[in-house]
């Protein structure tokens, strides 16, 4: 299964959940297609979330109680929106901290001089 439809896919593979949580944290509620488009727009097409990776991640987060759903009729169809729960808000903070720590550590390894300044 393709997790990310881009050249350096492996580097981004573990961050899908964090990206979803962060986007939902900023937008209150979003639907699946909207998330794929938002990531594409923010990264100017550099990063594309595949459908085969997005929905399993959303369903898993929902089953874990981090997301809750809301369904609305939009145009002529039903649309499922995802929202963060209280548990999801806490998890977002912790996931973002984790990611920042990771970036810091990578910075030390990749560019030691810069990190000492």
């Amino acid at each position, binding site marked *: *299964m*393709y997790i990310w439809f881009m050249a350096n896919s492996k580097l981004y593979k573990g961050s899908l959940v964090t990206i979803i949580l962060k986007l939902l944290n900023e937008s209150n509620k979003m*639907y*699946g*297609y909207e998330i794929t*488009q938002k990531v594409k727009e923010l990264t100017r097409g550099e990063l594309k979330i*595949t*459908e*085969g990776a997005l*929905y*399993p991640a959303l*369903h*898993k987060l*929902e*089953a*874990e109680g981090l997301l809750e*759903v*809301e*369904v609305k*009729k*939009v*145009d*002529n*169809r*039903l*649309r*499922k929106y995802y929202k963060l729960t209280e548990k999801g808000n806490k998890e977002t903070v912790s996931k973002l901290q984790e990611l920042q720590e990771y970036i810091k550590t990578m910075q030390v390894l990749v560019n030691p001089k810069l990190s000492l300044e």
Partner: protein
Amino acid sequence: MKISQDEIQDLYAFTRQHFVEHYDLQTELVDHLANDIESIWIKQPKLYYREARDKAFKKFGVFGFMDVLEKRHKAMNKKYIKYLWLEFKKWFALPKLLITLTVFIAFYTAFSTNMASYVLVLSYGLIAIWCIFKSIQLNRQFRRRKEKSQKKWMLEEIIFKQAGGSALILISQLPTWFRISGDYFDSYGFIILISIFSTLFVLWMYVSFELLPNKAEDLLNETYPEFSL
């Protein structure tokens, strides 16, 4: 250009053709495909609906909806286990705890007699008959519900069709239990252990075959906001 109502119905049929039978997942995929088709039409307005649909579907990869379907099932099973556990836990708090203790004492007393091996086979045999009866009954209920609503929900199918399935495998080992149990019924430790196990087993069966199916309506409403739409 916006997608028409007939095209929405075609998308539902399209997801069914690609092995997505459950309405909850179909609805989400239909909306996704519809959004993508409309966005494809912005760039290529002359593209026929079916061409745009196939283009949108290709983005799901070589396995189509299979990955999404498989992971959705896994996630829904997790949710089912959570509901099962929430109901199961109530039997260890008052007032239901009194019933749990009564069942335990009944098993302990029965397994302390010199007919313990026969009691074991008889009690588990009765549980097995009840489970098979309930399985058939729930399957029929599920079929009737599906015919009435013309929709199938994943959690509903798990509640009505998978209830206590693994327990029947355990019960099928009854002759082996009978052969080996005779040697251990002299030990108090073994009698306590088998009484605890039997109590938990009876509760698990009762929750999955009786309580959760009775609460199906509430659980489905809680899981799927679109259930009552």
